[in-house]
């Protein structure tokens, strides 16, 4: 039995109380909590423990916004809870806290712990804090964490889904609840028992608007050259504008770099692309910095335009596919990990795509979602971080 509740208030205790009223008298074995970034995490944790018991493991973290069956919000004051009260479907929690810089090691340690706990093919929900530092802005690269997790798993195979948390849509900060407390530079995983399986759809929304280009110079996440030309100049030429003196943060609202998987000359298929948002630009070096450092020299990429109409179509078809997959099954929880950039306040979409999800998803599934920095989902047989996607997972009983 998994029940979902939502609250919103400037006072953490009042928001928790609103949730508690929805859930009734309950002592969950695990609490999944997503909390608006204007709340003080320590105060929120204390309020949650006050309401649901001092020993309940609480996992989750900050959220740029929360999505639930009846609505969504990204004011920073929201609280969304999923309370697991049936031990048969409750996840086990593993978590690691690590140094700020070594994400791969963090992932490897987490992977090893998951391997000790998970059954073969288990569904694992991983959460980590996206923002490593704010001045200068640096994100924890999900690709390094995921690579580490895969390495740590060894021969154990799991279905890894997850997301990077944010306190708001401006990448101001992030933190997680890791079962023991509030943590930064940390990752936590909910390892579901074999009785629970997932149906997952990745909802896209980017369209290629250029021919293939080769990354000819790159250092980590910083792309210096595309086809031998300064990457920033290529982007500016495409946009027909000069990005000015700013750090180009607004580029993340406009364009991404996409790597097409499989046959590069096959027909367009949104599921073939891994997109990377542009975090910032540097006029001095003519470079652009991506959210993730997983592209390499020689990677063939295309400039991708975020396409709101395509995004909404993708949501409609993805949710319909999920509904078909779960029809007749015992649904436990719908979990929507939604890129913060897809919210209409950022994307400018005329329709809030989260509304489409919550309205279209089979009403028998309790729904909880959060706005994230990065989404992680199985992609072409291998879990990897994604940008500007929505990962919709429905947990069901096997």
């Amino acid at each position, binding site marked *: 039995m998994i029940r979902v509740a939502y609250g*919103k*208030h*400037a006072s953490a205790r009042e928001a928790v109380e609103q949730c508690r009223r929805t859930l009734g008298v309950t002592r969950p074995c695990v609490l999944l909590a997503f909390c608006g970034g*204007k709340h*003080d995490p320590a*105060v929120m944790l204390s309020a949650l423990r006050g309401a649901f018991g001092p020993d309940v493991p609480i996992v989750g973290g900050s959220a740029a916004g929360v999505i639930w069956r009846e609505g969504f*919000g*990204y*004011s*920073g*004051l929201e609280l969304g809870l999923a309370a697991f009260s049936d031990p048969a479907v409750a996840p086990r929690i593993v978590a690691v806290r690590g140094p700020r810089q070594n994400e791969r090691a963090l992932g490897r340690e987490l992977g090893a712990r998951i391997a000790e706990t998970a059954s073969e093919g288990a569904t694992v929900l991983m959460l980590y804090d996206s923002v490593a530092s704010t001045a200068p802005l640096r994100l924890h690269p999900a690709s390094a964490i995921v690579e580490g997790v895969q390495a740590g798993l060894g021969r154990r195979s799991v279905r890894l889904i997850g997301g990077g948390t944010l306190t*708001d*849509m*401006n990448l*101001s900060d992030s933190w997680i609840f890791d079962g023991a407390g509030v943590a930064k530079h940390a990752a936590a995983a909910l390892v579901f028992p074999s009785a629970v399986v997932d149906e997952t759809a990745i909802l896209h929304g980017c*369209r*290629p*608007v*250029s*021919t293939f280009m080769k990354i000819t110079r790159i250092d980590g996440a910083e792309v210096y050259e595309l086809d031998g030309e300064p990457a920033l100049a290529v982007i500016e*030429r*495409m*946009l*027909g504008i000069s990005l000015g003196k*700013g750090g180009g*943060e*607004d580029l993340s*609202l*406009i*364009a991404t770099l996409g790597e097409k998987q499989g046959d590069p000359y096959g027909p367009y298929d949104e599921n073939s692309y891994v997109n990377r948002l542009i975090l910032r630009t540097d006029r001095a070096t003519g470079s652009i910095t991506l959210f993730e450092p997983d592209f390499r020299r020689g990677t063939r990429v295309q*400039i991708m*335009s*975020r*396409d*709101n109409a395509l995004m909404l179509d993708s949501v409609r078809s993805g949710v319909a596919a999920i509904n078909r997959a779960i029809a007749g099954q015992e649904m436990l929880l719908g979990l929507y990990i939604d890129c913060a950039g897809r919210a*209409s*306040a*950022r*994307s*400018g*979409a*005329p329709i809030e795509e989260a509304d489409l999800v919550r309205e279209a998803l089979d009403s028998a599934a309790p729904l909880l979602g959060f706005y994230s920095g990065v989404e992680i989902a199985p992609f072409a047989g291998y879990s990897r971080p994604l940008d500007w996607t929505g990962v919709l997972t429905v947990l069901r009983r096997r």
Partner: protein
Amino acid sequence: MTRPLSPSHAATLGRLERELAYYRRECNDLGARLLRLQEEQSSAFREARRSRTVAKLIREAHRLADTGVPSDELAGPVLEIIVDNTMCDRAALLSESPVGSGRFTVLRAIGLGEQPLAVSVVPDPPSFFFTTAQTPLESPAYELTGILQLPYVLWAYDRSTGYALIIGNRLEANVSRPFEPGDQELIEGGLSVYLDVLARRRAEEAQILLMDELNHRVKNILATIEAMVGCSAAEAGSPEELAEALAGRIAAMARTHDLLTDARWRSADLGDLVEEEMRPYAVADRVRIAGERQPLNPRAALSLSLILHELTTNAVKYGSLSVPEGRVDLSWSRQVHAGGPTLRLVWRESGGPSVTPPVRRGFGTTLIERAAARDLNGAARLSFETAGLRCELEYPLARISPPAAAMAPRIPARQRVRDSVREDVLAGTRVLVVEDELMLTMTLERILKGVGAEPVGPATTVPEALFLAGSERIDAAVLDVNVADEPVFPVADMLREQGVPFIFATGYATDSVIPARHKDVPRLPKPYRQDRLLQMLARALARESASGDG
């Protein structure tokens, strides 16, 4: 080892390369156009969303007025709505005290955590302001960014009330773009909706308070009347005597209520109180009054009015005012004592029948002594001197004076009727009675029949009254101002059109409900006093008759 291409193959390859380059160029060009179109569309939607935000914010905040949130707790929920809609990092509502001083206290903030809410000084606060990366960090940007401890702020200030709203962001391009002049509508909309909802909630709270107070007073009045009935019954010799005593006492209370209402229930002047009570006897210098202006608090006014009424009634029935040559001297003055200043009133009768001390103490005597002592911590001394009754009352000024803040300017006293008209002009007249209170209609009918008049009706609704006025012969009318929750003025208009004299009977203490076209109509305050009703009706008939004659 690769073989060289044949000339035809080389030509084909060259053509294909050119063709590919063409398609690549066109593809990239079309892609760029698509990208820009997409961005333009997104920008347009984001701007449209902002416009909707103002409307949504106002709509949501106005809903708060209906939720019963107390006015002093409104700042929190309003701020939540503002934060929700503007997607800012921090926000605060501030109050300037005193208004115009530039000293602002944070009423409520979101996003500032547990930090103490300090006072901020903003010299000459602007009504609208915002900061960008280009804004120099000088006043008022320096002070305003300090409030939220963020570099990018948007501010609105209402000079008349001293309230201000500020929102702020860590990044200039919050969500999509920096603050700009077009955001004035958003921030001022947020502030004004808070002020609107605050004013509405305060008005509603004042109304609730007023209703509670009214309920309290009505219950007190009913309890007083109930006690008065019991005490009066115990000493009355006949039902008529009881009715007369009760009517007088209730009327005395009603007159004091009117005086207090004139001053918004803050105070009543002792001189006015005396004048109201003794006006019927203040002819030919029979009543001499001397005293300075002395404001009384409501409790003292009500208590003293009853005492004065008892003294007056006694004088009229048995004392100096029972004979033409008798007089009453009433004076008051402030006295200085070690225990604090007092007010001393002296009632002295003379020229009346010889007085002998009563064998037993009646209700009036008891009321005078106890009201003075218990209600107002004062003292009453009654001396039954042969020349006439002498009553001395003394009260601590602190107990009878209204608080300084309650000294409201008095509304000018209503025009008073002084000339006496013979009531027998009412005999044989048909008087339309428009009144929806059963007991009052019965009283009116009894009074009218008592002087030979014929009541028409009673009409208990406006349509009924209009029907009677249009179909019956009517010589005069008594109109309740509010009949079955409807103003009676359409009936008044019709009667005026027909030249039928009428008076308004009203429980309203002020004239504000009477439209200007009927301000000249005599008003009979409730509760009725028989003599006053008949006098007013007789006068209205006489005046109409005189104008008709002329």
